């Protein structure tokens, strides 16, 4: 895992899936997390996503993002009771702070939903490389020019991050202090960083375009991808199982399960 990628290169069964099947699997987790308000039901996709993430070697990724997950979880718990109606017995009564059972369960369910989405998304990027994401997009029918732009941006941005780091060190060596002053002053101090970074980036647009055209670049013709994969038996099985899960959880919800 590099500083600019969350992909973990392993040979697990999820890693071996076609990008489209992985997306279907993650989509089933997203829908299951979205469909239920009751935290007891929302906990199921959360556990599935978390266990899958750990199984594919995503613990370092989760650890890296755990402050954000925890912060969002707490924000959800604090904010949602203010945006929903009370119901059921009082669970917490601390003077001005009164929480009914419904408010608490609702907030917990929403926080779990946030966690399901983050952990599910993390599972996808942990098991799918940049190249697989781009070729999967093309195989899903997204136009080649768009896929090319995404692929090029994915290849370029680590270079720009390095350039930003170098410029930052150079400017700090010359006395630039990014942590001093109020918010406006701190933002202003970013100007000496941003100008060199993006002028460096745009200086090469014309040359790169000429190089592409010299090699016969044409967005209107169909192109092939070196790493394009085809859907095998396991891919179809996972896709069908994911669709069954999606239909199943929608059915459960329509039958009245998982509501508050």
């Amino acid at each position: 895992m590099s500083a600019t990628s969350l992909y973990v290169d392993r040979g697990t069964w999820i890693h071996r899936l076609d990008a489209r099947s992985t997306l279907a699997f993650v989509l089933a987790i997203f829908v299951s997390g979205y469909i239920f308000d009751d935290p007891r039901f929302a906990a199921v996709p959360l556990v599935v996503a978390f266990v899958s993430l750990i199984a594919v070697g995503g613990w370092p990724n989760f650890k890296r993002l755990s402050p954000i997950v925890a912060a969002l979880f707490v924000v959800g718990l604090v904010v949602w009771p203010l945006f929903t109606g009370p119901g059921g017995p009082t669970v917490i009564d601390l003077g001005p702070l009164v929480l009914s059972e419904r408010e608490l369960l609702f907030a917990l369910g929403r926080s779990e939903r946030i966690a399901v989405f983050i952990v599910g998304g993390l599972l996808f990027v942990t098991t799918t490389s940049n190249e697989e994401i781009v070729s999967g997009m093309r195989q899903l029918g997204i136009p080649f020019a768009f896929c090319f732009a995404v692929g090029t941006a994915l290849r370029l941005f680590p270079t720009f991050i390095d350039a930003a780091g170098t410029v930052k060190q150079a400017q700090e060596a010359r006395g630039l202090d990014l942590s001093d002053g109020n918010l406006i002053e701190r933002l202003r101090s970013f100007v000496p960083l941003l100008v060199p970074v993006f002028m460096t980036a745009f200086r090469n647009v014309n040359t790169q375009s000429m190089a592409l055209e010299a090699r016969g670049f044409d967005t209107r013709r169909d192109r092939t991808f070196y790493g394009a994969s085809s859907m095998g038996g396991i891919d179809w099985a996972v896709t069908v199982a994911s669709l069954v899960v999606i239909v199943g959880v929608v059915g459960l919800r329509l039958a009245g399960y998982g509501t508050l």
Partner: protein
Amino acid sequence: MREIFTMWRDTRMIMLVAVVAAVYAAVLIPFQTFQIIPGITSIRPANVFPVIFGIMFGPAAAWGSAIGNLIGDIFGGTFGPGSVGGFVGNFTFGLIGYKLWGNLTPLSSRVEPDFRENAGVQLVEYAVIAIAASAACAVIIAWVVDLLGLVPFAVLGPTILINNSIAAIVLGPPLLYLTYPRLKEMGLLYPDLLRSEDLSSAGSNLNPIAAWGLVVVPLVWLGVGFLLSTGAGAGLTSVTALGAVGILVLAACAVIVGERLSTIVGRV
């Protein structure tokens, strides 16, 4: 509005999309640790890019901002259904700059955005555009995130608006002053790259109304949405309906408004 799609025929516009996306993502990701409200928003100096790139690179900046934000989500670890809102919101963030520059009569400076001539009027015009673009981005993301039941509209909408606006207003004028002449000299402005028949004309009588619509609609959407969202319970349903209407009106205004920079730089 067809330039949004026809730009994909031009190799340099496609490269601009990729570079805008890469620069945006490259500056977004390292600053995700500078949290203002933990988990909700961070100091994002990169928020200046969709506005200034939008003014200079037109549709390439709209697509580039959308893709750059998506890459930021993927590598920042926040990729998920909310990324759809981020994609559309950041697309609009980049779109509004080139749609509005020169179109906000009587406030418009009607000169190139280099802050060398009529600098005071340019500053006001730029600030209005930055706020409109930030508000449009804020309401779309807050609407989708509310729809997904992640964070209420009333919490996220104003937060994104303030965060986007401050970065864009503070950093935009100096960055445009320093970079616009160089990028123009390189021939990278969208009027230099797009074919004149692909540039949408600003000749319609409805143009000024639609242009101000792009300013007013997001701000009204934000205000009404905030009130509905804080109304709790049933109000949440109305935020959904308001968003559906808001995005349709915004899209209609964006279709009607033609760009003016090509006329200002003497391209057409």
